[in-house]
């Protein structure tokens, strides 16, 4: 597909692999899928009438239509109409991510479009730190924001802050250690069913006291986490965050998306919250009551 600049002018991350097709038939990769886009370079290429093509691309028209829906939803003042827009968004998400099983990468891209307050330079800095780490953290932040949306948090500014602050906190982890060590420790902590004092030392190595105090990154449902908060003391957001944080590792980007994981019951979560999410994602005619939670 030939690249049109208007398709990507509002994007920060590349929606697919962008190649420059030379006259001699060779393809030069300009931007990989998920990389931060260099708009200036691409514009130069297009002005010079170079042949740029987009391959392995996401369905950008779907993203655009979803974004326009989300804008309408956020601008709606009347609760009844807001709920209608919300229904439509959830239905589209269900079709695309559960029925069509689109990738988590596409899910992240949509979340970034909906909720992100970061600019190009921030994203570039994150990717520069470590692409794998960034990919995992974006998956967590995206899943967290969308699950909050499903659970009934309807204020768009709240969701946006949730996404941004989560990604920021996650990217701030391990600032004093090597990226490889950080990834190892995150993976180790992720695997722990419950924590002990040795694990707490590991936590203190990678997380500042402020992050430990303000986030649920190192908590478990049994209350063995660093702040010793059990599932009964957590609210819905905290419960789902603990589950999502444990769900994502440093795996390939094309793993099953979070909605599929929820629908298939693979997400290790408190049964009440999981059932609530499954009920919302389940295909049935929604009513005023069901959409509220």
């Amino acid at each position: 597909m030939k690249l049109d600049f208007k398709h990507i002018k509002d994007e920060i991350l590349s929606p697919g692999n962008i190649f420059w097709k030379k006259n001699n038939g060779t393809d030069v990769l300009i931007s990989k899928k998920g990389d931060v886009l260099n708009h200036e370079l691409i514009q130069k290429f297009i002005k010079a009438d170079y042949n740029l093509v987009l391959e392995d691309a996401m369905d950008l028209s779907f993203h655009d239509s979803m974004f326009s829906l989300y804008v309408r939803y956020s601008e709606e003042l009347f609760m009844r109409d807001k709920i209608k827009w919300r229904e439509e968004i959830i239905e589209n998400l269900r079709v695309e991510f559960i029925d069509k099983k689109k990738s988590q990468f596409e899910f992240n891209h949509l979340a970034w479009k909906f909720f992100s307050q970061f600019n190009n330079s921030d994203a570039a800095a994150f990717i520069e730190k470590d692409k794998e780490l960034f990919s995992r953290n974006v998956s967590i932040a995206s899943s967290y924001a969308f699950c909050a949306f499903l659970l009934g948090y309807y204020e768009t500014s709240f969701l946006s802050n949730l996404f941004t602050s989560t990604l920021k906190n996650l990217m701030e982890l391990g600032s004093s250690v090597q990226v490889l060590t950080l990834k190892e420790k995150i993976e180790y902590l992720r695997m722990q069913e419950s924590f002990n004092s040795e694990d707490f030392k590991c936590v203190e190595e990678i997380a500042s006291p402020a992050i430990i105090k303000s986030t649920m990154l190192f908590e478990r449902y049994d209350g063995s986490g660093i702040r010793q908060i059990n599932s009964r003391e957590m609210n819905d957001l905290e419960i789902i965050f603990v589950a999502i944080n444990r769900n994502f590792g440093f795996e390939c980007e094309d793993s099953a998306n979070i909605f599929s994981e929820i629908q298939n019951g693979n997400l290790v979560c408190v049964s009440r919250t999981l059932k609530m999410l499954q009920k919302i994602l389940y295909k049935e005619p929604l009513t005023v009551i069901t959409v509220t939670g």
Partner: protein
Amino acid sequence: MSTDLKKKILITAELASSPVGVFFQDLGFELDYKYVEGSEYHFVIDSACPEVKNVPRLQMSESLSAELHPLVCGRINKEMFDSEQGRALLSSYFHDALEFDLVDRYSKEMSNIYSIKIHEYLNLGYFIDSIVIEAYKAKFDISALRSYLNTALNFSFKKVESSSSTMPVDVSYSHNGEAFAVQISLLCDEWKGIPEMESCIDEFTSLTNYFDITYFHKTNRLTLSALVFKNPALKSAKANFFTEVVRRSADAEIRRPVASDIYSGLVFNEPVRYQALRQVITDPASKLVIARKFAHFIKDYRQRIEDPPIPLGKLLIDDVINYLAHYPKQEELQEIDSEVKHFIFKLLMNDRFSNDVDDFVQVVMDSYPHGVVREIQKIMGDKGLEDIESIIAGQPLKAEDGFITRVRGNSGENSRPDFQRVSGSDATAMSDNDLWELRKSQLNMKDHTHDHAHAHSTQSATSEESRSENERWKIQDLNNALTAEAALEKEKLEAEFSQKILSQQKSSDLVKEKLESQMDRIKKIMYQLKKEILKLQAEKIAREEADRNKKNTDAQDVLRMKSSMERSLETIKNKDYAIEKMKKDFEQFIKSKDQRIEMLEQRISSMKNDQSHPREASNDDKMEKLEHENKSLQFKLELANKKVNIVTEKMGQREIDMNAKREREIETLKGNLKLAQSIIEEMKIEKAKLESRANEDRELLKKSKEETVIKKADDEKDGIIQVLTSERKGLEEKFRAQAIELKKAEQKLKYTLSQLESSNKKKPAVNPNLKSAEVLSKQLEQASARMAEATAEVIEKRREIVKVKQENSMMSAKITELEKKLANLDKKVA
């Protein structure tokens, strides 16, 4: 840590045999009446062991001493224990303990659970409506639920607005057909306990059957849980719990040692702040008295302090509160609600309210048209204001109790030396002494202020068992006698009061109060006497039942055993459910763990595979990759060359085809020309023939003219001439047509010849038949140009191949460098 694994609670001996004791026994608690050092008690019930201060207390009755109120962390009334649904709720509360969640409990295994997050106060109404609609669909009492939600969410939003966080209020609700449960959860920076919601706690508890406040210090989360039963018969069943989960230090034990499998959220000495609920005055008569008291004060205040007093017309309802700010006992102002306030205001507006009896009664009737007031007016007729007020004050809660009756006899006196017998219908059925003793004991027990009149040693009916036959008669007599006596006393008093008041037109406040208090006392005595009678009757019935039960002790034991078995079965079922839940969670955890282990194994195997190959091999791989890339590039080049060859071949073939086509066209044109020439020659021959024929005909005509001899012959000649002329005309026309055709053919020939000439002279076509040839020639030109480009590209590609080869060499150099670096790093790591 205590080694005592028994589940113990402290309870009074009275409650131990009541449904309360039985309930806790069935739950598996051991009931103790005395505090034993070293034992760990989960909680204390009611006023048992008042010396124990470090264990939370559950209040069952209203009459708990004020000292113990700070220890109370839960209140459950009798109706809750009486109902099956209430017992089931309490059972799961105490059984699930720290895991208990009201909304989960009534969610039909999470199928009917809903969650709402409210960000803005503006949307509150919409969400309350949605909850109420759900309750309405499920046929619950929506008025109480709506009131509760309005008050609770208003309170919650006030708390949220005052706190630093901007988290929305989280509302979850569920229902299972028998009860509707709502839980409101909010972030709250600071929680000072129940006093913070003193203004609305009464409403919360009165509107709901179950109300629970829990504050989690660690997460600063306040949770208000409420439940409403569908069954209207359970409206009076109440259970309230006030729990705070304290902040545990980070180095403290993660889990408390579990002393037993049953423990509650109330236990473990969690500091619980609780303030007993103040009594709500609902009796309109009492409200009237309170209103009157305050109205008196205001009136007095206006007369004494204000100079001149503000005109009544200018007073507003809020001025009542302003006046009452000067009231000496401010704690009594708690009794004032909006109704009392309005009452006070009405009384103030009518300035004559305490001067004239009739007017006052009218005021009262106008202000509060209560049946009791009308009854008083009817009975008392011409009695004084104080009497009416005192009767209003002393009215029982229900007018139909029959306390206002006309009776004959003497009214009571404060210092009466002896008791006057009253003649009653059944009084003679009882012996004088018995009646006297019983009556004295009852009076003495209930009211010590009447010592002068009724003070005697208390002799209760201890030997009732032996006197069961006479007792019924005695009770009846006593009832009649006491009612008559009280009525006599009352009437006497009233008569005295009326006389006094009628004689003294100006009644002093002192006298009024004294008389009122006397009337109150009499009323109290009457209440107490009636209660005693009822109690005695109840005791008697109970005794009779006990006698009957003695005969059926075995059957009762069996029944009790059966009921306890059923309860234990229920608890086992609950346990099973909890175990199943835990099992499911555990299985899920195990599944996830297995998946993770598999993933890890896969990773390890892949890592092993990676490690098993030496780094050189990996470099070789890279080299191989590069070579593969080179090969692919070469293959692409070959392909491009092939394409070029094919294009050139095609171009040549196309040229040959074009030439052949042109030759064929020329040949056809030549053929056409020959044909046209032959046609022209034929036409010329025909023309010559026709000319010769015409000449012959002319000669024949000349001959025939010369021979003109016979007319007939002339006619024949004329006919022949006509035929010949017509033939001639036809031939001439034919000739003309042939000439036209000839001309056309000649023109065509000329055109083709000129085209042929032009095509021969110049390649660009003039002849339309040669257009395709021109296009083809153009294409040929383009193809030749492309061929030239393709050859240029081939050259460029060759150059690029050279570059790639150079890059390959560079890469290999880099790889060798990296190898060296890796070797160094390995050394360092080693």
